[in-house]
Structure formats: structure tokens, C-alpha cells
């Protein structure tokens, strides 16, 4: 590293191309985005100062080891990054709709957009969402006070936040990579991508990947060890089951991507030749390692969504979940099978017919347990009493759309068909078709379902429903046309094209993207209007939906100790946790320094990070005892509220009368049992 004290960082890496020549629409968009990040960050700092929120932010949130607060912060990161990811996606769809013979975005800018969009949506939207949900809900569902390793939980959050920060910083300082979210070498090797872009990708993925790995360990230990007495495996709620399977998948699937990314880093920084063209390097090894992570990853994301659908289908049909045992077996089968199919991501690499066929068959096998799960939810609704609440709208969208995505997945499992549609918009349509109606709809359904549990008030049902329908419509218009385009041979990642037959499909798709943008705005408005009317929406007693699992037996929001009746107290240590918050700073600086080759800063922050972990790990555990009287007082207050509350029927579920106490449910005219 023979650069100056700031490495290779220079003035022209700032979003100021307007002043440095070659201004155009594409550059203006990039600069505008960078400046927007700066303005938003300054605005946030200003608001925090005006409302004197620094102290509460630091004391009650950033240094908290409460699983619920950590979960909320994860989901907040996910929502924030979702905004950027959606805007990028819309920009790409609009550009493609207008790109006959050349769009308004330069090819390089377009490539950065699809690279950040994919990286953000997988690593910094979907992952924080599911990790956040597991954090918020699982301890409540299994009757635990907190995660098994609360401090490690916080370090995981710090790592994820550091990775997300690097991606946001790349918008302001320098460029992001153009190698897509998979960063396939040799394109991402130094010879072909000499800038800082790929390095941003590497360190964002490595740092947040370590965080996810720790989350996986934490969740699985929690579920194995901290279940309340009597909570046997076959009594665990389905969401907890899916969380367990996901955690196991994380533990086994994150290391390959961390390793492959670090190997790529070794190629780029230390002149290794793992994946280079020359000296025995081979990019096929990268593809293998990456998808050994990449395929289980999609199940890491979808399984918790399946868990959400299991919970809401039973609750909102007021029925017991159909086929619990089948669902458990199916979930586990999917988890195991997900490790046997990664090669289908590169049927086109020339490994021969028998290898391809074997992996194709393995891929199709996953369709069996997945089909079983869908049928199980249908059976759950059958002969139920279905209330069309917001989560049920998302479930409806999931049923109707995800099934199509599953069908195209079976198509893609056939090597002969994959040869035709691999790398085309058909593939893009397929994975959006499983990720949006599957993961995103599941997560948004979960937000509506558990929001009152976590925050103590319901989300506005009317705006929630509008948002859900907008998502369903937006998805359908934006992505279903891409199937047709893919069959016509249109490649993914193309910033321009010249076949007039593409025009109508791309215009519909672009219009659909705008509807998705509306859905995003409606989602934000749902939160705003609900916070404004939180008094009317409050459900302090804690059971607004006539829920069926343990988390609904607590107040909303639940106290830090979750359950007063378990006669022990929670371990917590604020001193440690301030160190853990420092991990975020150290990890972010480390990533940034590595990207820009600022040697001294990388060394200092790495030392800080390592020293911090050693100090954290070598201290004796200290418990802070919450006095029993505090717990008793809060518990009594809740009981008083509970006794004073009026139980509501399901007809009054989305009215202000619902304070979170469910009355035995009857239909009008039916006598109460």
C-alpha cells in the first residue's frame, strides 16, 4: 500500500462529478443519491439533537441487550435498506422500459445498481428482517427471558449494521462493484475490476456474514437450551420450528460465503490466485463455494416466512393448525435438501449430463415438502372462520403468486430448460416471484401480526390492507411479464436492448415497478398514521388477535423479563454492551479502511475489534438483578389492566374497543359456549 495517509481515497471519489466534469442524467442521479444520504444522515443527527434523544437512544436502545429491542433495530435496518433497494429496483425497471437502443443510465451505473440492489435485498433487507423477527418472537414463544448469549446478539447486530453502513457509504464515497450480488470472478478480480467497488462488496458481506453466523449460533442454542419447562420440541410453535431450521442452515451455510469472499479478498489484496485466470486459479471453485451458501440462503430466508404463514393461518381462521407433524417434517426436509441442490445455479458450466441430472432431481424433490406446506395451510383455512385481516391478504397473495414461482422453479430444475432461460429475465422473474410473495409478504404479514405484541398498539388496518393489495398488484405487473421476456431470450443485467418485441412487456413491467413504489409509500404511511393514532390502537392486555401461542400470554409490549412467573432473573450487563456498540464502529472503520487501502486505520480498528472481543470474552459474567418487587409491581399493574379490560369478539378486532383481551368467539346469533 504505497498511497498517502488516506490510502487511495481522493476528492474525485466524492459525489461531486458535477464539479469534476462529465455531468449527465446518470451522473446526476448518482450524485443526487449520495447527497441524499448525507442530507438524511445530517437530518437524523439534527432531529436527535432537537428532541434530545441522544441519551435515550444510547441508554435504551444501542446498549440494550433486550432481544426485543435488538430485533426492532434489525427490522429498522431492514426497512431502511428496503427503501433504497426498492428505489434502485424501480430505477432499473424504468431504465429498461426506456432502453431501446440505450437507456438514461450509463451501463456502469446500471451495473452498480443491480449489484447493490441484489446485495442489499439479500444481505441487508431479508436477513435483518428474519433475524429481527426471530429475536423479537422466539424467546416469547418458547418462554425464555432472553437469548442464550445476549451480548453476542448485540455484536451480531453491530456487524450487520456495519455491513449496511459500508453499502450506504459507497453511495457517497467512491463506487460500488459492478459484478452483481454474486461477485463472480474473474470479473471481480483485480485485473478486470481494479477500483474499490468489489472491495466494498467483499467487506460488507464478510462483516455482516460473521454477524449472521453468530446469530445462527445464538438462536439455535436458545431454542435447544432455553425452552420453558414442558415446551417439548413437538410442542414448539411452527415459527420457532422454522427459526430453528433457519438457524441450523445459517450455521452451516454462512462459512462458505465468508471463506469464498475472503479468498477473493486474498486474490485482490495479497496477490493470491484462487480464482484468477492464470497460475492455476479457477472461478469454478468460487461458483461452487458461493452457491453452497447461496442456495441454503434462500431457504434461510423463506423458512421463517413459512413459519409466519403457519401462525397467521391458524390464528385468523380461528382453527388449530392442520398437520403440525407434517409441517415439522416438511420444514426439516427442506432444510436438509437445501444443501443438496446448489449446482443447479450453474448447470451451464459444462459438468456433464449425469451430474446435472442428479442435481436436477434433487432440486425437484424440494417441491414435495414445499407443496405439502402449501396444502397444509389450505387445510388449515378449510372449515375455519376466516377473518380477512392484513396478514391474511398477504397470505392470499402468497398462495396465488408463490405457487407460480414454485412452478417456474420446477421448470428451472430441468437442465434442458435451464440452458434456455438461465441468466435471462425468466430467472429474474422466478427468484423475485419466490422472494417477494414468499419472504417479503411473509415478513410484512408478520409485521402486522406481531407489531401490537412488540409495540403495544396495532397498525392501521385500512392502510395496511391498501399496502398489501398494492404490493400484490405491483409485483404481478412488474415481474410476471419478465417470464415472457426471458422466454424471448432477453438477458438479465442488460442496460439496453434493440428487439421491438420487448416493448409492451417492459412497459407493463415498468408501470408495475411504479405501483411497487406506491406500495412502499403506503407502507411508510401505515407506520406514520398508526403511530399518530396509537392511543386508539393500543392493546395493552396483549392479545389482540385471539392468538394461540405463548407470546400472546404476555403484556404488550412485553416487559424486559418477558414472563414474571419464571422464578429467576435475566442476566444483563450494561457495561459489556457499551463495548459491543463499539464493535459497530470498529467493524465499520475496518471495512472502510480495507476498501480504501488505509493501512493504519485498518490495523487500529482490527486491533480494537479483537481486543474488545477478548476483553468481553474474558470477563466474568455479572448479573444485574431486577428486584422482585419491580417485577411484581409491573405484573400487578398488568393484571389490573387485564381485569378491567373488556373482552372483544372478533367482529370488533380492528376497532378501538380491542384492548388486547379476546372474548370467546361467536358469530352474531350464535349462543356463547
Amino acid at each position, binding site marked *: 500500500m504505497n498511497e498517502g495517509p488516506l490510502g487511495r481515497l481522493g476528492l474525485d471519489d466524492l459525489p461531486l462529478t458535477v464539479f469534476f466534469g462529465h455531468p449527465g442524467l446518470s451522473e446526476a442521479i448518482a450524485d443526487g443519491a449520495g447527497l441524499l444520504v448525507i442530507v438524511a444522515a445530517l437530518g437524523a443527527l439534527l432531529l436527535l439533537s432537537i428532541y434530545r434523544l441522544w441519551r435515550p437512544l444510547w441508554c435504551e436502545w444501542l446498549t440494550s441487550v433486550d432481544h426485543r429491542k435488538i430485533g426492532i433495530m434489525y427490522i429498522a435496518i431492514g426497512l431502511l435498506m428496503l427503501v433504497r433497494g426498492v428505489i434502485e429496483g424501480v430505477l432499473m425497471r424504468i431504465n429498461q422500459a426506456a432502453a431501446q437502443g440505450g437507456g438514461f443510465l450509463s451501463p456502469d451505473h446500471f451495473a452498480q445498481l443491480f449489484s447493490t440492489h441484489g446485495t442489499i435485498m439479500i444481505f441487508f433487507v431479508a436477513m435483518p428482517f428474519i433475524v429481527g423477527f426471530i429475536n423479537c418472537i422466539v424467546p416469547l414463544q418458547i418462554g425464555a427471558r432472553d437469548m442464550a448469549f445476549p451480548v453476542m446478539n448485540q455484536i451480531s447486530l453491530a456487524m450487520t449494521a456495519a455491513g449496511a453502513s459500508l453499502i450506504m457509504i459507497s453511495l457517497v464515497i467512491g463506487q460500488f462493484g459492478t459484478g452483481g450480488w454474486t461477485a463472480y470472478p474473474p470479473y471481480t478480480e483485480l485485473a478486470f475490476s481494479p477500483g474499490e467497488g468489489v472491495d466494498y462488496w467483499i467487506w460488507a458481506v464478510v462483516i455482516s456474514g460473521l454477524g449472521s453466523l453468530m446469530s445462527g449460533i445464538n438462536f439455535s442454542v436458545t431454542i435447544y437450551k432455553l425452552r420453558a419447562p414442558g415446551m417439548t420440541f413437538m410442542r414448539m410453535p411452527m415459527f420457532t420450528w422454522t427459526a430453528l431450521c433457519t438457524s441450523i442452515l445459517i450455521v452451516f451455510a454462512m462459512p462458505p460465503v465468508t471463506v469464498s469472499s475472503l479468498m477473493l479478498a486474498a486474490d485482490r489484496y495479497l496477490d493470491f490466485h484462487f480464482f484468477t485466470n492464470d497460475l492455476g486459479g479457477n472461478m469454478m471453485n468460487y461458483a461452487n463455494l458461493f452457491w453452497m451458501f447461496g442456495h441454503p440462503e434462500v431457504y434461510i430466508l423463506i423458512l421463517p416466512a413459512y413459519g409466519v404463514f403457519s401462525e397467521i393461518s391458524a390464528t385468523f381462521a380461528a382453527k388449530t393448525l392442520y398437520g403440525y407433524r407434517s409441517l415439522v417434517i416438511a420444514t426439516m426436509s427442506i432444510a436438509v435438501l437445501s444443501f443438496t441442490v446448489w449446482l443447479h445455479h450453474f448447470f451451464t458450466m459444462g459438468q456433464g449430463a449425469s451430474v446435472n441430472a442428479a442435481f436436477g432431481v434433487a432440486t425437484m424433490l424440494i417441491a414435495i415438502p414445499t407443496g*405439502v406446506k402449501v396444502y397444509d395451510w389450505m387445510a388449515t383455512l378449510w372449515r375455519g372462520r376466516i377473518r380477512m385481516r392484513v396478514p391474511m391478504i398477504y397470505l392470499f397473495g402468497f398462495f396465488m403468486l408463490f*405457487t407460480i414461482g414454485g412452478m417456474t422453479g420446477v421448470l428451472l430444475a430441468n437442465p434442458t430448460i435451464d440452458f434456455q432461460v438461465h441468466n435471462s429475465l425468466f430467472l429474474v422473474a422466478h427468484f423475485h416471484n419466490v422472494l417477494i410473495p414468499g419472504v417479503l409478504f411473509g415478513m410484512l404479514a408478520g409485521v402486522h401480526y406481531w407489531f401490537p405484541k412488540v409495540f403495544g398498539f396495532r397498525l392501521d388496518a385500512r392502510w395496511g390492507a391498501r399496502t398489501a393489495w398494492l404490493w400484490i398488484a405491483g409485483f404481478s405487473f412488474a415481474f410476471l411479464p419478465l417470464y415472457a421476456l426471458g422466454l424471448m431470450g432477453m438477458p438479465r443485467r442488460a442496460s439496453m436492448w434493440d428487439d421491438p418485441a420487448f416493448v409492451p412487456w417492459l412497459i407493463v413491467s415498468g408501470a408495475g415497478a411504479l405501483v411497487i413504489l406506491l406500495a412502499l409509500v403506503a407502507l411508510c404511511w401505515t407506520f406514520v398514521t398508526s403511530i399518530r393514532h396509537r392511543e386508539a390502537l393500543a392493546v395493552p392486555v396483549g392479545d389482540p388477535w385471539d392468538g394461540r401461542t405463548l407470546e400472546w400470554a404476555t403484556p404488550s409490549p412485553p416487559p424486559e423479563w418477558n414472563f414474571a412467573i419464571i422464578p429467576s432473573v435475566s442476566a444483563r450487563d450494561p457495561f459489556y454492551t457499551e463495548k459491543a456498540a463499539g464493535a459497530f464502529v470498529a467493524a465499520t472503520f475496518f471495512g472502510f479502511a480495507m476498501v480504501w487501502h488505509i493501512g493504519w486505520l485498518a490495523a487500529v480498528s482490527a486491533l480494537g475489534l479483537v481486543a474488545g472481543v477478548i476483553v468481553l470474552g474474558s470477563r466474568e459474567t455479572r448479573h444485574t438483578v431486577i428486584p422482585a418487587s419491580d417485577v411484581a409491581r409491573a405484573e400487578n399493574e398488568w393484571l389490573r389492566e387485564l381485569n378491567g379490560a373488556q373482552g372483544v369478539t372478533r367482529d370488533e378486532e380492528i376497532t378501538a374497543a380491542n384492548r388486547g383481551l379476546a372474548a370467546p368467539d361467536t358469530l352474531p346469533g350464535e349462543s356463547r359456549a
Partner: protein
Amino acid sequence: MKGLLDPLGPVAASQQQHLLVVVVLTLVAVLPVLVGVPLIYWRYRRRNAAAYRPDWGFSPLVELMMWGVPLAIVVVLSWLLWQDTHRYAPEKPLGPTPLEIEVVGLNWKWLFLYPGERIASLGDLVIPAGQPVTLKLTSDTVMQSFMVPSLAGQLYAMPGMVTRLNLVASAPGTAVGRNMQYNGSGFSGQQFRVRILSEADYRRWSERAANSPVRLDKSTYNKLAASGSLAEATAIFSGEAGHRRPFPVPVEDANLFGKIVGRYHTGTPIAPEQQPGASAYTPVDDRL
């Protein structure tokens, strides 16, 4: 390019056929959901006061159907998958003496070498109708994906390695092929023409090389390998007259393809200045 929807040879036709069969068979499992879900949502809406069995959570018969039907479909599909994957495996020649064509992926164009005729063509794949063809694919830059949808689908072309894609065209016609794997700013335009000629026309086409004033040698290849569009690369061969279609041209070195593949196996590092496709690449006459 309406590739898969408009097949010009038996491989793509079989892929299209397979696609339709899989769609139909999968619909057996999918249609009950697409039809059943709206019916269930409507019939069992809370206000309808239809039958209500809140504790019903298991039925052996339903379980059998749920697991059995998808399993049966997957067994049939797997059988078809196994057969089809082997019948038209890309590496399997489609006749006893296929015409061999060597394909080199570059930034952002495709070079076709005809070792039998010792001629080369750029961005214009010409094949005789009815004659099985073996395409030997490599790349002299990053990984690319070679695709002719109306004939055979795609296969990766990777530096230092050779993959084989076999195809045959049924009748004379034209098609479009392209690179499907993102490889930089010129990716979107990296298409090529495919012309399927009769036996006689093909021979006439290949003989045109004899009159060409320029040829493909080390010097022109190294220039050609620099990143740029097909038009820019074609200009290298257009000569003074500015021919728009200067191909085919004669090839100086019969083993050019072998050298392109072999350059990555010499045990010596390739500096970015020597690596085609790298931003630092500078063409030097006598490399390779």
C-alpha cells in the same frame, strides 16, 4: 429474438417440448391451489357461517394425498428430466462427423474459428444446415455465457478451459445469439448473427476468405482482443476499402485456439497489460 419459442433445430425443439410437458404436469399440483384458495377464502369467510371445525388438524387420507400427489408428479418429472438431460446433453455430438467450430469469447464480441477451413469470422456464426456442429467454447477475458436460443440454449465459456456445445440446424435461416453473463459495460450489445446456409452456400461463403486482403494473425488478434464493440473490432479487418462485412478471413496459425486456451497454463503470471478484457490491457504484436 424469439429463440425458444421459435426453434430452428431438434435440440431447441426438444427443450421447448420439455418445457410444455413440465408445465402441464406441474399444473396438476398447482391448479388445486390457484382454484381452491379463492374458493376457501370465500366459502369459509367468517360472516358466511359455513361449517366450522376448529379442532380438525389431521386426516390420514388428506396426508396421503398431500405427500403422494406431489411425490408421484416429481417421480414422473425426474424420469423425464433424466432422459432429456442425457438425450441432448451439450457435450454429446449429434452425428458421427460433426463440423468443428472454435468459439472465443472476447469483450464484447465473439470470434469463430473454423479449423477445417482455417478461416475466421467475427460476430457472424455461419453453419451449414443439416450438418451436426460441435462448438468448442473458451474465453480470452472473463467468464461468458454463449447462447443461441433457437438452436441449443447456453453454455459457459471460460478462460483456460474448453466446453463443448453440440447443435444442428434443420433448415437454412437466420437467428441471433448472444452472451448471457454480464462482463462489463459492453455486455448489452454483445450479440452475434447466426446464419444457417445450404451446403453449397456454406462452401461458397468459406471460399470467400481466399480473396480477403487481411488475415487473422497474432497482431490482428491482439488488437481484436482489446475491450470494444463488434463494430470497432470489425474495423480492424475492414482495410482501406472499409468493408462492413470483411469476414471470413484466413487464419495464419492453425493452432490459434490452442494457444488462447494454453496461455493460462504456462505457469507464469499474466499481468493486466497482457490480459485481454482487463482495463489495463495494451495490445502488443507478438504475444501468443
